[in-house]
């Protein structure tokens, strides 16, 4: 009977080797994957009781971990919750993480591979591991200007957004969305408090947790005329001085309808220059241009500015801006003036503006400037990279001149800054019947050496229908943000 016993010994050995190999697979090879799963409470608990890194803006922390006397030992705190809440995001035991707390979690929690050496040192030194710090590109003065600007239109209930970019790098200098929420409420350690706050936020019809700068698209209205103008100039068939129709209405083919101007009257003559058309935001002229160059050229131009793409890595949930896929001719005319099915995020419109400001090259937008280890060694520094070449530099120059003229002589006068050349474009986007239009303003300054490009959207400020216009509501905020950056 010894032979089968020996055989069984081999079989049993094979079983035990299988156990050993499988344990190695589970605890070593697959460990990272299992540890990074979202529903893994262990990893979350450990992260919660670790000193998480801070999120900094110009050296001041806008998110920090402070020691507390409970099971988790550290509490996440947001000193300026409303002003920076949409950027920092929340760090919630129950609802996970959001915004920079989510995208930079590896660094903040200290589990990033670049912090491996720190972790080993901590392990042998028997000190608790710490997370690294993240510095944002935000300019606090610009952020404050944008925040206050929206607030002063009508208090905390104003719906709107401001996004400011550095045209030459793509760095986000300001990003404000209103109404705001307080991430402290979601990051508390009292679980019922968290879930109450969560319910309140998700049931609020105004959706305060939504970052309107990137997570929602709006009809861009007349600010989209910049894209139409860019497509027209790029086609080579038009110059800023080309004559285009400027009458009171534009006949739309295939229908009995006509496209009127906002004012109801003409744009200053039956034939006007392209520059004039932009100055007065002439619907007739741009509707005509759109039909002339066609929806494909418009779409292609829009895509060169970033429509239909996701380009923001530092914040989660950026939605794609869109241009309709197959419009007929009247729809193309409406699309050319930023109506019909055209929709863009405020960040997208800021990128259109910044692309023009930067000689036609759109830079990839980013929010994280610098990442540091707990010992303040710089681990990573943002490296600006071009995103797409939207227009040639000569077209960018022409568009800049046209936009300067909008501010100097046209609808954008409210954005003028003494002694500084400002280039801009207003927009008033119709939404649906019975709903107030959206007020837009996009601009950059100084026009000859741009330092900041900004897009302002006012979705609803609780003012009368007649008082809503890009120049009246949005342009003053843009001006304030530009001043904050330039006068720094």
């Amino acid at each position, binding site marked *: *009977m*010894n032979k089968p*016993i020996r055989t069984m010994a081999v079989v*049993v050995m094979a079983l*035990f080797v*299988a156990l050993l190999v499988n*344990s190695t697979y589970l*605890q070593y090879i697959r460990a990272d994957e299992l540890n990074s799963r979202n529903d893994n409470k262990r990893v979350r608990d450990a992260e919660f009781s670790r000193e998480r890194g801070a999120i900094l803006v110009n050296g001041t922390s806008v998110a920090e971990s402070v020691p507390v006397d409970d099971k988790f030992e550290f509490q996440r705190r947001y000193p300026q919750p409303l002003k920076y809440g949409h950027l920092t995001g929340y760090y919630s035991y129950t609802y996970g993480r959001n915004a920079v707390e989510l995208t930079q979690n590896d660094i903040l929690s200290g589990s990033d591979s670049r912090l491996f050496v720190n972790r080993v040192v901590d392990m042998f030194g028997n000190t608790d591991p710490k997370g690294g710090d993240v510095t944002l590109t935000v300019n606090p003065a610009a952020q404050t200007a944008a925040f206050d600007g929206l607030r002063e239109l009508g208090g905390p209930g104003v719906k709107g957004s401001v996004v400011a970019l550095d045209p030459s790098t793509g760095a986000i200098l300001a990003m404000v969305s209103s109404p705001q929420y307080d991430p402290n409420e979601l990051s508390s350690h009292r679980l019922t408090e968290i879930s109450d706050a969560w319910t309140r936020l998700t049931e609020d019809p105004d959706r305060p947790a939504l970052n309107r700068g990137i997570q929602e698209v709006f009809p861009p209205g007349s600010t989209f005329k910049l894209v139409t103008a860019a497509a027209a100039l790029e086609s080579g068939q038009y110059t800023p001085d080309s004559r285009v129709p400027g009458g009171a209405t534009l006949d739309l083919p295939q229908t009995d309808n006509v496209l009127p101007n906002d004012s109801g009257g003409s744009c200053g003559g039956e034939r006007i220059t392209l520059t004039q058309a932009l100055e007065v935001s002439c619907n007739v002229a741009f509707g005509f241009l759109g039909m002339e160059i066609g929806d494909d050229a418009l779409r292609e131009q829009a895509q060169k500015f970033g429509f239909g793409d996701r380009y923001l890595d530092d914040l989660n949930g950026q939605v794609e801006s869109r241009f309709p896929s197959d419009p007929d001719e009247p729809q193309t005319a409406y699309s050319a003036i930023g109506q019909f099915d055209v929709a863009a995020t405020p960040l997208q419109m800021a990128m259109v503006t910044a692309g023009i400001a930067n000689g036609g090259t759109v830079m990839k937008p980013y929010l994280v400037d610098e990442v540091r280890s707990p010992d303040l060694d710089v681990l990573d520094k943002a490296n600006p990279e071009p995103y797409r070449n939207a227009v040639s530099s000569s077209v960018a120059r022409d568009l800049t001149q046209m936009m300067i003229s909008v501010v100097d002589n046209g609808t954008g006068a409210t954005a003028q800054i003494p002694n500084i050349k400002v280039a801009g474009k207003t927009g008033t986007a119709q939404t649906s019947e019975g709903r107030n239009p959206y007020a837009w303003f996009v601009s950059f300054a100084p026009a000859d050496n741009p330092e900041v490009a900004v897009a302002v959207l006012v979705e609803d400020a609780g003012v009368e229908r007649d008082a809503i216009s890009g120049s009246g509501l949005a342009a003053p905020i843009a001006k304030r943000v530009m001043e904050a950056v330039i006068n720094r």
Partner: protein
Amino acid sequence: MPADPRTAFAHRRRRGAELFLLLLALAVGIGAYAAVGLGVEGTTPTDIIGYGGWLVLLVVAAHVTVRFTAPYADPVLLPVVAALNGLGLAMIHRIDLAELEQNTEANTFARDQLIWMTLGVLVFVAVLVLLRDHRRLQAFTYTSGLAAVVLLLLPLLPVIGREINGARIWINIGPMSFQPGEVAKVLLVVFFAGYLVLHRDALALAGRRVLGIDLPRGRDLGPILGMWLVSLGILVFQRDLGSSLLFFGLFLVMLYVATERPGWLLLGGTLFAVGAYFAYLVMPHVKARVGAWIDPFGTEYDSYQIVQGMYGQAWGGLVGRGLGQGDPTLIPFSYSDFIVAAIGEELGLTGVMAVILLYGLIVERGLRTALVARDAFGKLVAAGLAVVFALQVFVVIGGVTKLIPLTGLTTPFMSYGGSSLIANWAIIALLLRISDQARRPLPDLSGPADDDATAVVMIR
């Protein structure tokens, strides 16, 4: 092994080696207990002297018994078991502390487990003292078989039978609950060994050859089919996948060892595969286990326990979080079936490998005992015990580490559970008894040296 046992290698007693290894095992058990205190509360536990003293007492009692009643027994088995049991106790104590942290009214298990361990050692001593020759068990072949079947049926009885977590494998005696299957396991080994010693020639030699496999005669096949039915019965009526697999696997292996016909493994394996497949098709309980195994992160089947176990082990990584530094209470039943996951979390892959290797050592020493045993009955009992132990370890650790579908079985010597602990201590006592007989120098016999004939004479 040489053909003539009288010229075989003469084994020494090696009791001194056993004592030295036992000291190491005590260091593991008491050290782990102290480490738990340090990890959880920051100081060594206040009862470390009393606890450690009690462990020392138990180990010394076991060692002294072996020294006097089985002086030639294998010197490795007892220390390995002591180390595993001590580590298991410390781990259960650690999980108790974690539970108490969350709920001061929580059930604790470590004290009960220590009592069970004490009873286990008493059973161990009793087996060694009362059973001076394992061949006496052969007289109880059919008694054991009957007792095993009765024990297996007990949980199905209305009053004392109890269903816990879907498996009806428990009985209530007064305030205590007991898993009779664990004891039935030992009895079945004895029954199979006794039965096969008598029938192995008929099973091996009579019958026809079909497709290269030697098939036995119908009447010899009866008990095998009967055992197959019993296994399926356990599966169907008690819904205990693990025990079903264990008993049938045990039977097949013993049949193979007795007859030296691999065809039995093939035939039995096929029967089991067919039965298991039908169980999978028909029984939602089995289907759920397999489903949770194939796709633990899916939502179709409840896989919370296995996923938490995997998270725990992954969190432990190579060296573990350290005793007291993990979160083993997140895993349901981390003090019993899933104790290996808790070990994996706090002692890491290193700890799990050490535990698996210790189990491997027990199995290896058991099979070695079977190899050197001088009588067929002893060989079969030792091989059966070693294999049933190996299968149990494989099924439970394989289930916890997601190598195979999860089935409910206790982890020998580590899981909380009295029946399992007592039965396993009895298994070790039996192995030591057989090993003592096998390693003892042969008396100078002038009579016939035929093992089997001698055995029969001695029994009757």
